């Protein structure tokens, strides 16, 4: 496929690595050395990209939120404030990492690392481009969910060991949220896996480019649920409950300072990048864009899509207020999970009909898309009405205006927030 299969054809990084491996073998190294070398190059590549994009995204996020607040955002450090990320990193490095006296030192020291590692390991599975996935597990998506579930322990260790009431409440809230939204996340992915028929990340991309359709067009409900569950998992507003500034100072990482806090801060960004990566791979066609990947290197398309999804998270953070912890839990157990069950049932039936009936994709996919869109919207409204959301008593109401002095307008009908 690549015309110039030379090592400098960077459209497919595989060439460079392939040329390097042959070179090493010519030097007569044992057979496992090129395997290790390409692994290291892959890891270093991802690490560099992560650090650079995190530093840039600190600036982009604060600028975009600044524009939403019609103020300027960081512009002091470097030209147009571009070095803000670097300044933050240096500041965190130089600050003294205080360990409060009565903490459980081993856990206190281990928690930031325990949060940082899963956020990095997840990138092994995400396919950046053609042949550019660090380890092509055929249980790729499940690996992403499993690693996501490890940082629950790390959050608990952080909250428990810093011996601070606020941290403990934050940690307990975080664990409760993570567990209930992990279910929703797994079911959202299940819908997609059923339709694609495999859990390999590269298969998702090939399925979507093969049928020339993006998965979110066929399964909107799964995308919405996955984004909401993702928001909760990476603890970003409107679900940043455990570090809700207005209530608990900074949730489970109240007691951390210096580079330990830097790890928490970086881990949140890396987890969000990973989440955006998985969203793009599962729902938005990974590195393919209707044939554009022939000319433009796949990973550039993938990264632009990833940054676009990240922008949606920033947008949500800038505008939406925060839910209370019990409302968030009720939303997951009473609303999202039921929608996911129905979604899996419908997708399962559709795939069964498609596989058994032997129809080809072009005729059957538009029908499925129509069914799923109508189902998503209808089901959401119906179920919300069932739970009493859309009814009159909980609608927004302006204050009544009156001229009559001393009159009583109290109805007392308002039901507490559902």
């Amino acid at each position, binding site marked *: 496929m690549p015309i110039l299969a030379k090592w400098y054809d960077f459209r497919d990084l595989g060439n460079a690595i392939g040329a390097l491996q042959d070179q090493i073998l010519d030097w007569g190294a044992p*057979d*496992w050395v090129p*395997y290790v070398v390409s692994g290291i190059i892959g890891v270093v590549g991802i690490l560099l990209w992560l650090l650079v994009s995190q530093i840039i995204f600190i600036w982009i996020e604060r600028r975009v939120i600044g524009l939403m607040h019609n103020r300027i955002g960081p512009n002091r450090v470097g030209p147009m404030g571009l070095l803000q990320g670097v300044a933050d990193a240096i500041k965190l490095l130089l600050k003294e990492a205080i360990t409060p006296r009565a903490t*459980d030192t*081993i*856990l206190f020291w*281990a928690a930031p690392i325990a949060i940082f590692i899963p956020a990095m390991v997840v990138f092994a599975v995400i396919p950046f481009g053609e042949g550019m996935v660090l380890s092509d*597990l*055929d*249980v790729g998506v*499940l*690996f992403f*969910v*499993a*690693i996501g*579930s*490890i940082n*629950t*322990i790390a959050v*608990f*260790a952080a909250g*428990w*060991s810093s011996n601070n009431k606020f941290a403990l409440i934050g940690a307990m809230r975080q*664990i409760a949220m993570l*567990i209930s939204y*992990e279910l929703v996340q797994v079911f959202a992915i299940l819908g997609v896996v059923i339709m694609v028929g*495999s*859990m390999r990340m590269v298969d998702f991309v090939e399925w979507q480019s093969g049928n020339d359709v993006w998965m979110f067009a066929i399964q909107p409900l799964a995308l919405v649920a996955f984004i909401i569950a993702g928001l909760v998992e990476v603890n970003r507003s409107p679900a940043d409950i455990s570090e809700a500034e207005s209530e608990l100072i900074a949730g489970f990482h109240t007691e951390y300072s210096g580079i330990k806090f830097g790890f928490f801060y970086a881990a949140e960004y890396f987890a969000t990048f990973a989440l955006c990566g998985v969203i793009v791979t599962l729902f938005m066609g990974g590195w393919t864009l209707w044939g554009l990947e022939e000319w433009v290197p796949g990973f550039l398309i993938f990264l632009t899509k990833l940054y676009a999804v990240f922008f949606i998270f920033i947008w949500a953070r800038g505008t939406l207020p925060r839910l209370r912890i019990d409302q968030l839990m009720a939303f997951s157990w009473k609303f999202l999970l039921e929608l996911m069950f129905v979604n899996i049932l419908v997708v399962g039936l559709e795939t069964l009909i498609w596989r058994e009936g032997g129809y080809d994709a072009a005729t059957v996919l538009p029908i499925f898309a129509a069914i799923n869109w109508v189902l998503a919207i209808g089901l959401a409204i119906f179920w919300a009405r069932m739970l009493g959301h859309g009814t009159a008593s909980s609608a927004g109401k302006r204050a009544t205006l009156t001229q009559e002095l001393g009159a009583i307008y109290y109805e007392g009908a308002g039901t*507490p927030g559902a």
Partner: protein
Amino acid sequence: MEDTGTVVAFWALAIITIGSAFMVAAVRNLIHAVVFLVLSFLGVAGLYITLSADFVGVVQILIYSGAIAILVIFAIVLTPQAGRDNAETSMRLPAVVLSGLVATMLGYASIDTNWSISDRPGFEETASAIGVALLDKYILPFEIAAALMLVAMLGAIIIVRDEGTEGAAED
């Protein structure tokens, strides 16, 4: 299984698993014990992956270190009487002797028997193989397990429910 990478990985993971399992019993602080337990779960998951049973390995991470560890943590945190350290027992010596005996017996048994290496090639697609096996060959145990878990969940809700009805009901 013989190339150097997996052997090195095997021995590294074995040491991690056994070491953290031993630390679970030896360490004083209960929460540290749980963290070491999680470490040993991850070690076992690594061992599965060296045996190229990747689906089981990943599910091991998801289920054991993701859910069951949290269960254990909540159990520890919510039981008020549980002191935060491994209780000091006078049975320390007999425990060591007994575990030593069991360890040597198992070690001898595993080294002495000559395991027959099956010649069938390893599965590439482990996930679908397990899925197929679960849903046609072992469909009955699969359904029974599902029913059992459902009953257990309902039981848990009922225990909490009637105890908290007056509190939870109206507000």
